[in-house]
């Protein structure tokens, strides 16, 4: 009996720690979706960038020696946030702002971005980075110069049509030439997975009954809680948070009242992307880091958003914890074991049923069925936004 209890506790702890990862991955998604109605399919790739940033920071700290090296994770969290936020900002300014009001197209465009990011990590080298820098310098520099002319509006299309292929050709040519230099041609990450070694103080765990609670899991839970507090404070106590909330509730009215909605959008997107970077940093402690890291988490975090609803943060929290716990309890067979051990006669047929679903992939099948069933009762999620619009 005590063992079953420990098993249950173990299950719940593991569930919560899976839920914490889901939550930290889904937080940014939920904020962006709530504000702009945009589903960012590149969210997983932003996580992947965060994880790679962690890897790079770790490499940079290695020569510093032991006492400092153990602290790299704190620098990595901040760096991952900044890198992902910058990429997110570029994504919003470059692509997504042209697509507001067309959510399905945004979905496709962000998928394109995610493909590019994935391949970028695989094939980035010194030569490629330089040629991208050359392209940005030429193209955006020329645009910046031309924009000062008074007849800019009339020549805009023509200028872009000439500049874009020209700078692409120059950048491509220089990239090809630089690729002949062996040092510059070396791939930074290549297609192989890399490993992030957790700092010494995160290895091991607290012994508990038959199992132990790993420190890395506890660290992720702590990080998630910290992010939640930070986001909560930002959204509810700061000026920009107030603006974000007001735009979420009614975009047109906020614009009428003088809130710069375009800036709010950019800021929110950067914030959500930054959170994805932090999530990537957390995830890099759990397993190896590869270009496809994001795809493992992305669908589950979508489900968190769907179940949680977009109105409140608390919806995402509850949804992530419930989905994480259910996934673990079903997938590890804990439910089947408990039912089997309970000795109650009429529950025995259920044991076979739950044993059938007791693998990680089959648990997803069952959780999806439960989600669909849940949506029959509450189609707009746990905490829907209340309103009188016909769309709601």
């Amino acid at each position, binding site marked *: 009996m005590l063992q079953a209890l420990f098993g249950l506790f173990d299950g719940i702890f593991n569930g919560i720690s899976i839920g914490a990862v889901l939550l930290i991955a889904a937080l940014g998604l939920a904020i962006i979706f709530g504000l702009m*109605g945009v589903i960012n399919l590149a969210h997983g790739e932003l996580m992947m960038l965060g994880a790679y940033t962690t890897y790079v920071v770790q490499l940079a700290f290695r020569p510093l020696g032991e006492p400092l090296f153990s602290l790299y994770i704190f620098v990595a969290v901040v760096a991952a946030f900044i890198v992902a936020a910058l990429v997110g900002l570029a994504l919003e300014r470059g692509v997504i702002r042209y697509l507001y009001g067309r959510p399905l197209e945004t979905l496709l465009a962000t*998928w*394109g971005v995610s493909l590019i990011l994935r391949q970028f990590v695989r094939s980035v080298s010194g030569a490629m980075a330089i040629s991208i820098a050359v392209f940005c310098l030429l193209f955006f520099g020329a645009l910046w110069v031309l924009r000062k002319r008074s007849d800019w509006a009339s020549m805009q299309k023509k200028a872009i049509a000439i500049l874009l292929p020209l700078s692409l050709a120059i950048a491509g040519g220089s990239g090809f030439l630089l690729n002949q230099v062996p040092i510059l041609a070396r791939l930074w990450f290549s297609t192989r997975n890399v490993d992030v070694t957790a700092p010494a103080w995160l290895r091991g765990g607290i012994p508990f009954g038959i199992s132990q609670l790993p420190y890395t899991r506890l660290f992720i839970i702590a990080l998630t809680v910290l992010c939640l507090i930070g986001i909560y404070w930002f959204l509810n106590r700061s000026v920009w948070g107030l603006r974000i909330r007001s735009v979420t509730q009614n975009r047109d009215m906020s614009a009428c009242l003088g809130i710069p909605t375009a800036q709010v959008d950019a800021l929110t997107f950067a914030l959500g992307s930054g959170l994805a970077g932090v999530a990537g940093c957390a995830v890099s402690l759990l397993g190896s880091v590869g270009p496809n890291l994001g795809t493992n988490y992305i669908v589950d975090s979508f489900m968190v*958003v*769907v179940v949680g609803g977009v109105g409140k943060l608390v919806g995402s929290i509850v949804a992530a914890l419930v989905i994480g716990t259910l996934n673990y309890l079903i997938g590890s067979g804990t439910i089947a074991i408990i039912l089997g051990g309970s000795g109650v006669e009429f529950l025995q047929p259920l044991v076979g049923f739950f044993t059938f679903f007791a693998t990680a*992939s089959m648990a997803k099948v069952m959780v*999806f069925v439960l989600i669909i069933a849940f*949506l029959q009762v509450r189609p707009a999620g746990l905490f829907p936004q209340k309103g009188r619009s016909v769309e709601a």
Partner: protein
Amino acid sequence: MAVDTALGRQRSRRSRKNKLLIEAGIVVGVALILAVIVPLILSDFRLTLLARFMSLAIVALGIDLIWGFTGLLSLGHGIFFALGGYALAMYLQLQIPEGQIPDFFPLYGVTELPWFWEPFHSFPFTLVAIVVLPMIVAGLLGYLVFRNRIRGVYFSILTQAALVVFFNFFNGQQKLINGTNGLKTSTTMLFGNQVGSPSVQFSFYLITILLLTLTYAFCRWLTSGRFGRLLVAIRDDENRVRFSGYDPTSFKVLVFAISGGIAGIAGALYTVQSGIVSPQYMDIAFSIEMVIWVAVGGRATLVGAILGAIAVNYARSLLSEQFPEVWLFFQGALFLIVVLVLPAGIVGWLRTDGIDGFRRLTGNSRTLSTFPSVELDESLQKEREIAEK
């Protein structure tokens, strides 16, 4: 007056009939060229590639039906595609002497055929299952989602999640369906011939052309009448459709199921032509790619869906043969360009701007009967351009 309009209506009906006849003639002509002349030109390898692309064009038609016309973006069409493929592959796997079971079963210690394999001994049942099985799954999923007025991106995400779930299920069940390895069809027998042999592959090529033509005709019929207008109405303003007394849910479920059935046909054809069906057909990326074929060709234009599917896949096989790493960059850029610059797709662009642009180039731009001063005033023209957008 009344006589006038009646005459006009009759005339417009006649001209529409003529147009339809011309279109049917073109379609049949193209199909005949594909069936008779193209095999003489292309090598066997290219011909099977073309046949595969045409079966992918069939699923693109199905996607066009729900996305282009009805505005439902499904990211889970791989499910229906794979279900159709599995249905046919199961029949082919069972073409073995009486009392035996397919050779992968003993590897997992299975000695008896699982119950759901039994009906696939019969060929007619399999043919029906290829269409009806995906339709049932699509209809069920559609009903559960649409009846709660879940739509837009929510629907897209849910279809994607369903895709992942089906992938996991098929991937994990070795004892039922051979898991990751999938079902091979190239070495199986169909009516006494090996499926992988050139002669059978050629007849599949002809069948693909026939089915593509039939699917096109079916979609054309479906979208041109009242039903098609209703689909477009649902896409443009679902609430107004509902307030006008229609029930959008049932129409959406129906069209989603039809689209699933079409995907099933395509999957079955694709399976026998590529020689295997595996859970990889339910890869997330593959299902989103199907959408981009339609987007490249042109949404809500059926020809566009077919051309887009063939063109993108041809580009893919060209590029990934030579520079595999460039293909993903190219594909990503394709998504961005189509969405940002060319939202109507190639065919859509040709129909609207393309013709005008061509006229302008050749120097006979369309003349409008307005005041000359309006035509000459640049600022007015600019305003009109903006208004037209």
